[in-house]
């Protein structure tokens, strides 16, 4: 499959997305697109640490959950403005990413995966059992909507456009980092830590950075979700969610930004589109994933594509396109 991300193609897709709320008044459709947007940010953020820096995490839903709960609680209890809450959620989630990373990022591969899995479970149990604050399994209802200059943004359309803005900001920031010296250093840490150290790169620093940035973006997605859905409970932030996000990243192609977006779009749309198959849909869906992994293990957008190095272009060195045969 060859998809070319040329400027006209992107412009058309973007225009269609902008126009969507004008052509459909169907809240169900917008709702799906907003969920999709949240998952796009989640998969982009997981891709950053797992696809790009090579650190497998099976607990991404925990950071999503922390962002959600922190955002919801400060908006409910302290009437913090939504946009400030977004930032606070990002900081708190990032902080938890840092605290988890401190002892665990010295671990490799499978061990790290197991610890992050455990962390995900612990966080979920805290949501359930710290009832005084989180109301446990009952969840938190009535989470406020954003307000701008006294106007409440409570329509699906508003959330839809906010999601688009958030995705654009996320993509721009991640692109900048990936194509910077930091991004290149992260790639070397993923490829060969000993070689990385031999040129002066401190592996733990870059793993940590990737982990924190990834958690922070998941936290933003969480806070946004809380306000959008206005009710959260621990059942959203389960292991299953972590795996779904990971599936999006892998399906789209590890380490690829367009890939993570495509992965999130497909995995949010597919269950909806396959709804007519009722009980068989998860079965068919699983089978499709297996087929995909056999015939295109690098994902839709993985390995076959290597993005031009912006570091060089920014330096004024002209056109510079590396390519991998594959």
């Amino acid at each position, binding site marked *: 499959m060859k998809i070319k991300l040329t400027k006209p193609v992107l412009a058309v897709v973007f225009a269609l997305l902008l126009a969507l709320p004008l052509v459909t008044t169907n809240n169900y459709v917008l709702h799906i697109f907003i969920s999709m947007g949240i998952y796009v940010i989640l998969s982009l953020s997981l891709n950053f640490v797992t696809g790009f820096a090579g650190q497998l995490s099976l607990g991404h839903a925990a950071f999503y959950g922390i962002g959600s709960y922190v955002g919801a609680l400060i908006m409910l209890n302290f009437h913090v403005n939504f946009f400030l809450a977004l930032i606070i959620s990002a900081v708190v989630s990032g902080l938890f990413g840092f605290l988890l990373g401190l002892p665990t990022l010295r671990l490799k591969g499978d061990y790290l995966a197991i610890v992050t899995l455990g962390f995900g479970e612990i966080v979920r149990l805290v949501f359930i059992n710290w009832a005084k604050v989180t109301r446990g399994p009952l969840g938190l209802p009535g989470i406020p909507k954003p307000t701008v200059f006294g106007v409440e943004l409570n329509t699906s359309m508003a959330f839809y456009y906010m999601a688009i803005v958030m995705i654009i900001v996320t993509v721009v*920031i991640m692109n*900048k*980092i990936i194509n*910077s*010296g*930091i*991004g*290149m*250093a992260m*790639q*070397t840490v993923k*490829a*060969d830590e*000993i*070689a*990385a*150290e*031999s*040129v*002066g*790169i*401190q592996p733990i620093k870059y793993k940590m*950075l990737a982990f924190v940035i990834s958690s922070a973006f998941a936290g933003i997605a969480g806070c946004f979700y809380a306000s959008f859905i206005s009710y959260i409970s621990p059942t959203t932030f389960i292991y299953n969610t972590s795996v779904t996000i990971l599936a999006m990243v892998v399906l789209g192609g590890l380490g690829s930004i367009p890939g993570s977006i495509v992965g999130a779009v497909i995995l949010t749309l597919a269950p909806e589109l396959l709804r007519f198959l009722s009980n068989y849909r998860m079965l068919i869906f699983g089978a499709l994933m297996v087929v995909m992994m056999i015939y295109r293990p690098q994902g839709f957008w993985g390995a076959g594509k*290597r993005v031009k*190095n912006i*570091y*060089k272009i*920014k*330096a*004024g*060195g002209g056109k*510079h*396109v*590396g*390519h*991998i045969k594959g």
Partner: protein
Amino acid sequence: MSAILKVSNATMQFGGLVAVDDVSVVQREGEILSLIGPNGAGKTTFFNLLTGVYKPTKGQILFLDEDITNLKPYERVEKGISRTFQNIRLFSELTTLENLLVAHPDCNREGLIESIFGRSKLIAKRSKVVEDCENILEMIGLKDQELELATNLPYGKQRLLEIGRALATNPRLVLLDEPGAGMNGLEKEELSSLIINITKKLNKNILLIEHDMKFVMSISDRIIVFDHGVKIAEGLPEEIQNNQQVIEAYLGRGITDDEE
């Protein structure tokens, strides 16, 4: 002449095996020092002690009069020691140029904020990094292949690229672990003049491991010989060539090999 590197009584033990045994070495500023010895003599292990991959069981390493024995590998790079690997360890999925960029301190120490919000100052800095690295590529003769993925380069060029990468860290001392391995005669001649250029034009110090005696004898100012982890000889090339102990170590190689 002052010492750039001073190793005192370094010992490295792996379980029962003493890979480096109470070795003391001094490298003087400006000289090309070579490390030779039969297979398994402990040469690479000695490099790993110098670069911090292993911490010595005993002993002390001074670099420019500073004790670096307990520093991490990346901290030693900052101090000015860089290396190549016996088994090439390039970043194979990065391009030739990128392999150098990531080694450049101004690239791999870029800050998060500046990488997101940086403007003209950042661009200027990056331009300088690219320029530095392209100069090195010019020197090692890989400028034409700067956009090629490292993995697609022929073997001999990969070895050169590793040297280039080591240079990109802006080191004072470069450790080369068998840089000529797998190269043909012509390539070795070029390598030899490259190494001399690195010392003369760039004013770097070189410590090198090499098996090719002709190569070592012609290029080295001084030679150190290891056998079974012990330093058995040290001196000028002519002295080493005629050293009885060295000749025995090399002749006896067939026998000791079987013991391992």
